């Protein structure tokens, strides 16, 4: 057997080159494939984030001067009662909307997963209707329903002999109103997520449980809930991120107050305050500082929530 014939140098060179090129290409190709996301993220995600932080260090008039003020905006933020009020409102609305929303979604998903449900597809699709309705339209309808003198809810309360409630004017009333709008919109969406996860649970588990005499409630507690834990963790985190950034509902819910959502800023959320400062009053530097603060808060809370939910998951069998 002859060994490989010695390759003349002038022939070997291009061959090696081709092989190196091939290697580089194979090395780069996967990065090129995933690059659209990262390029778009750099342009629309990371750059605005860094630029916001940069602006927050200035007294930034978009059409006038940009005066460097260091961390003054953040110092001012700490002493700004309007910011703390907005933060309180945001958390209050978030809790009021997320908790009932996820519980309701769990229950609905369990019902929709029922083996003997007729017209299952119809019901499953209909829970998504609120989600595909425009937020603006939803908000305007709800705002009219909650109107003090001419709203449907107060008309009903009046029939029952109760006093009219001025929802938009009061702190809790306005929070309930906005939380209702959010829950109405997102419950169906979360229901479908839970339902998708439930569909993956083997039917035999339920059948076996039923054979052992477990009723619907016990099946829900001991089969549905445990198998849903990862998706529950996911919805809690996404609801936290979404809930802390609530904007459209409070903006449109209370047209009298405009950007302050009420005369006493009783339902102004952090994003709405950010918007008021930046685009209402053109204090872009201060608005950016609010944005940075909100970013930190959202990251921190998503992390805490994730830890809590996953901890619960690992502690139980």
């Amino acid at each position: 057997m002859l060994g490989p014939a010695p390759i003349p140098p002038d022939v070997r060179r291009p061959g090696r080159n081709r092989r190196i090129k091939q290697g580089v290409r194979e090395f780069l190709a996967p990065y090129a494939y995933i690059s659209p996301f990262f390029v778009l993220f750099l342009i629309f995600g990371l750059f605005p984030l860094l630029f916001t932080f940069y602006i927050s260090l200035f007294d930034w008039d978009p059409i006038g001067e940009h005066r460097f003020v260091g961390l003054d905006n953040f110092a001012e933020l700490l002493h700004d009662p309007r910011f703390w009020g907005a933060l309180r409102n945001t958390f209050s609305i978030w809790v009021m909307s997320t908790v009932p929303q996820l519980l309701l979604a769990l229950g609905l998903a369990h019902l929709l997963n029922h083996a003997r449900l007729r017209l299952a597809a119809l019901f499953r699709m209909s829970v998504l209707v609120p989600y595909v309705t425009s937020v603006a339209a939803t908000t305007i309808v709800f705002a009219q329903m909650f109107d003090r003198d001419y709203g449907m809810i107060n008309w009903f309360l009046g029939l029952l002999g109760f006093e009219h409630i001025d929802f938009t004017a009061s702190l809790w009333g306005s929070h309930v109103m906005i939380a209702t709008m959010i829950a109405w919109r997102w419950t169906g969406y979360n229901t479908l997520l839970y339902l998708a996860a439930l569909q993956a649970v083997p039917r035999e588990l339920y059948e076996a449980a039923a054979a052992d005499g477990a009723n619907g409630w016990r099946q829900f507690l001991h089969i549905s809930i445990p198998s849903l834990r990862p998706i529950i963790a996911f919805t809690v985190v996404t609801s936290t991120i979404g809930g802390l950034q609530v904007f459209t509902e409070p903006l449109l819910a209370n047209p009298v107050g405009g950007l302050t959502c009420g005369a006493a800023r009783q339902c102004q959320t952090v994003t709405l305050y950010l918007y008021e400062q930046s685009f209402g009053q053109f204090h872009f530097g201060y608005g950016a500082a609010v944005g940075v603060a909100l970013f930190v808060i959202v990251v921190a809370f998503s992390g805490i929530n994730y830890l809590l939910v996953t901890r619960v998951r690992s502690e139980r069998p």
Partner: protein
Amino acid sequence: MKRVRSTVAIIATAALLLGGCGGSDGESDSKTFEFWSFANINQKADVDVYTKAHPDVRIKLTEVGSTTETAQALTAALAGGKVPDLVLIQADDLPKFMQSPDNFVDLTTLGADDIKGNYLDWVMAQSTTKDGKIIGVPTDVGGLAVAYRTDLFKAAGLPTDRDEVSKLWPTWDEFINVGKTYVQKTGKPFVDNTPTSVFFQAVNQGSQRYYSADRKLDYDNEQVKAAFDVTLKAFSAGISAKQGSFSSGWTAAMKKGDYAVVCSPSWMLSQMKTNAPETDGKWDIATIPGGSGNWGGSFLAIPKRAKNAKAAWNYISEMQSPKGQLDHFLLQGSLPTTPSVYTDPQLVGKTDPFFSNAPIGKIYTQSVVGIKPFYFGPQDGPIGTEFLNTLTSVEQGKVNPANAWDTALTNVKNAVRE
């Protein structure tokens, strides 16, 4: 490698397409210009009149949205986007732009000096910088008057003739007394709300608002306090329907006749017609308590980077001439800023059937002559909002009238940035 290169090329192209919007669209000719207006003021009518008279001129009119949205879009454009050649700015938004006059063409360089005498001097003062640059030409003002329901007045045994009604309330105190009588007779509220219908009118009737004559912040002054106090007095008299202006409740109550009186600047008339068409003919218009005053109005300005400032200026000088403004008033009802037409028989004779044929031209122009000018500062907007919000909180029972002034000052202090 070729594949990589083409992938990179695609990404680069995509990035260019996504990031590179708003570049120049090439040619500029002196016969075409772009005009941004806000919606619901029908600048389209003016544009049509102008292009009919000048068939060679092409105007690209964009109705951006509300007054605030237009100001926001303009801000974004000035900060680095594509600017229009001509833009309509609402009076409340103007002070923010007056802070950075370098963003606009100084209209004195185009001949504004020659025509500035045509306009009400206190309106012109709002768009003139300290060193005499003119940033905007006023298109209209917001004269003040009171719209009232003749049928409800009759039911309450009050006079219905507009001159007699005007005589009932030369001052705000007398206005409050009429309100009390109305409430006693009918058991129904009199005025839509006090923060807008009383405070926003009264505070615009003084010789000073939130800034002193030498352009320093001074909102804690006697005139503002007086307007604030008379509002609290009106509230305490129990005459308010507590329907916040422009809310859904306000509109519903207007339709149902659940209040008899709205203090209505000239630009609000068209909103009332749209909101409550079924009340056609039931309204009339009387003079405002407390004398002359103005709320609102708009200005036309030319951004510095405009491609075709000359064409825009030709448009301004023709359409905003006294004759142009008179024609626009007859067509649309916006109140002219050119006092020379205030005695024109066409203006004086203009009536409106929705408001029982009230001579709206005469009533509203009377309310804007003899105004004592005050300085509009950059923070007028936020300060006005805080005062209004505090008074609204009083109506909602969330703030005790006794503490209202202190609360308002605290809120204003938080909102104002030195």
